[in-house]
């Protein structure tokens, strides 16, 4: 079964607000995590990654937080825009593996 999952299948956000998307993982051997964004009719697009020796990483308008104690990953999107509407997947790599394990996905809808 999947070892990575998202807490909520859908998230509705007002344009301009911050979004927080959560993900729980169960495998403590995972050491690398990625967030992907998938728009309708397209493939998953890399947003940001984080390795297990870090607890926070920032990109442009996005921040990923990793809490290894409770095996929790989150993606924060600042000042959410209509173009942020998509399905967001967290994914993990096991140590030394070439395979990603995807969570179930959260559909983010931005309200104007």
């Amino acid at each position: 079964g999947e070892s990575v999952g998202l807490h909520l299948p859908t998230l509705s956000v007002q344009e301009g607000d911050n979004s927080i998307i959560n993900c729980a993982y169960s495998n403590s051997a995972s050491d690398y995590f990625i967030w992907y964004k998938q728009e309708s009719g397209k493939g998953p697009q890399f947003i940001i990654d984080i390795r297990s020796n870090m607890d926070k990483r920032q990109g442009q308008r996005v921040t990923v937080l990793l809490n290894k104690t409770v095996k929790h990953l989150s993606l924060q999107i600042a000042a959410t825009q209509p173009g942020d509407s998509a399905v967001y997947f967290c994914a993990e790599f096991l140590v030394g593996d070439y395979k990603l394990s995807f969570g179930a996905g959260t559909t983010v809808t931005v309200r104007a």
Partner: protein
Amino acid sequence: DAMVIQNPRYQVTQFGKPVTLSCSQTLNHNVMYWYQQKSSQAPKLLFHYYDKDFNNEADTPDNFQSRRPNTSFCFLDIRSPGLGDAAMYLCATTKGARQPQHFGDGTRLSIL
């Protein structure tokens, strides 16, 4: 510029008629993957190649085969498509372990 290119974007085939989907990459990555994605679900790994070494997932049906004639190209062959094989098929590449996977925009397969 697209780095992982999948052709065609849409493919329609008849029940039981063999079909081949193609993927090419300009990244010179060692690892190539094929995923199946059904509506509202996470991508499901079918198999992957590390260079010419083929790695099949345990639950991938025998109906699905793959070929990788060179670094740049990888093909997915579905020998006798059934209605349950209608899905989006995604190709991805990566340089190696603990590196982001880069996805193409997929081929949407319909079965008549």
